[in-house]
């Protein structure tokens, strides 16, 4: 049985690298971490993992990305997998988008860049606690 996955989505590789270091430092081998540089890639990964019967616990997504934006991604994910904890991590707070994500994707929380590592961990932990 594979470990559950935390999936991070951001078009900036440097952000993904940072997230991975922080997550791994905190949660170590408890989870497995996947990374996508676009919303499309994220959806692909989720489908693949689903086929492999690997569960995604948390998705942390940037908002402003080329192509599909974060709120739309989270809404799509929510339609298929309502149980996945959805967190938005954005530098540009588009209030409408956040509002949409809250309503239609049951957004757990929205964090702002530059984020605080502890806050990120707390957010994910509090999300996981609701599972």
């Amino acid at each position: 049985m594979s470990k559950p996955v935390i999936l991070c989505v951001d078009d900036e590789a440097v952000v993904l690298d940072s997230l991975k270091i922080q997550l791994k430092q905190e949660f170590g081998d408890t989870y497995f971490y996947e990374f996508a540089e676009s919303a499309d890639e994220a959806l692909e990964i989720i489908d693949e993992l689903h086929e492999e019967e690997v569960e995604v616990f948390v998705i942390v997504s940037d908002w402003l990305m080329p192509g599909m934006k974060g709120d739309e991604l989270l809404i799509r994910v929510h339609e298929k997998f309502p149980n996945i904890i959805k967190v938005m991590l954005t530098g540009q707070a588009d209030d409408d988008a956040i509002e949409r994500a809250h309503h239609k994707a049951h957004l757990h929380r929205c964090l702002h860049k530059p984020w605080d590592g502890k806050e990120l961990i707390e957010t994910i932990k509090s999300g996981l606690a609701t599972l």
Partner: protein
Amino acid sequence: MPIIICVDDEKSILNSLQMELVSALGDEYLIETAEGGFEALELFEKLLEDNYEIPLIISDCMMPDMPGDELLKYIHTISPKTFKIMLADQTNTDAIVNALNHADLYRYIPKPWDSGELILTVYEAIKSYFKDQLLEEQNEALKEMNTTLQERSETLVQTLDNLKATQQELIHSEKMITLGQLIAGVAHELNTPLAAIRSSVENILNFLKALEQLPPFFQMLCSEHQQDFFALLKKSIQQTPLSSKEKRQLRRTLVRQLNEHAIEDATTVADTLVDMGIYEIEAFLPLLTDSKSETILEKAYQLAGLQKSAQTITFASERAAKVVFALKSFARYDQTGKKTPSNLIEGIETVLTLYHNQLKGGVELIKNYTELPQVMCYPDELNQVWTNLVHNALQAMSNKGTLQIDVALQDNQILISFTDSGPGIPDEIKSKIFEPFFTTKPAGEGSGLGLDIVKKIIEKHNGRIKVDSIPGKTTFTVSIPVNPNEETCHV
């Protein structure tokens, strides 16, 4: 009524003179008389004081109290406009010359005079007097007009100066508006590197907290393993950046290989190896198959992470610096008013750096650059041109589509064009877009000065801007001459 003064010491002559004049001019002129120079002067001064007009004085030449030429000389000093006629005979040459030279004598009439000639001369004198007066009045009016004109032209010059200053301020404030619109995007642009720096520093600090674990760890490694361990780190430092997809593929390959070697927890190990940039495991099998492989890999990962964090900080601060530099060169306000040599592509790149965030949202950017010579120009004003054209292009296609920037050099002209894939500019407004205050945006959103200012800035560089637009393809082309000698012909 104007007054004509007659002066003669001989009463009979004076009377006949007066009578002749009265009969010729009596309706229109008062004829006053004086029997000597002093009396004439006294009369003259009094009449002047009372503001009478005295077009003419006729004086005898030989008078006991004051010679006629002296009288006229004096009259000339107090009333130069009055015409002077002297009654004289051929013997008075010196007096005539004196009066001609110093009293601007109009005529002398020999005694005894011919009545017709006298009247004719008097008429002519009076006519000349009023002609002079008219001329003078006209002259005066002209002078006044001239002064008014001069004042007006001074006002105009002043107004023009004010307008120029206002225009300069408008250009500046338009730039600041654009800058304001950019700020949100730029903030994001700075946030990403800041976030990376922040988490990298956290990572480094976390590692330092566990520093004391290092000595026992190295003691635990046998010397061969120590060598392998450092080889692993060295390899890790040389890693090339890969996309998340590539990393996943490599991880899968590694998982297979690790399974072949019966290494436990292959997925986690493969993930860590990929993070460290280790894609071939043959050389590191001794480490990976060791009983303490988990600890070894963890320490290697942490140490490699240090290196990686340092790289991230370097990369991120370079990126932040680039954004700050772009902001600085954009916000710069050159007050010297002098052209400086500059590379136009650098300016375009500055603007693109500031728009990076808006561009990446869904715009494919195609750049066809040729190398350009340095051009004498106002770089900060040209930046405003590029900003405006990029901004308009993005707005025209609602931030989704293709933006193509072509830079070419042709016949000593630099051609820079911005082509967007937006819906195009309707024909009916195409001719208006460069007009001041023309805007398609709702009131309050755009000043409508953008393209007008763009055009003015380009004209300042002796350049031109044109637009070609069909649905799906709108191109603004700016041409600027390379040769700096062609400047100064436009104002």
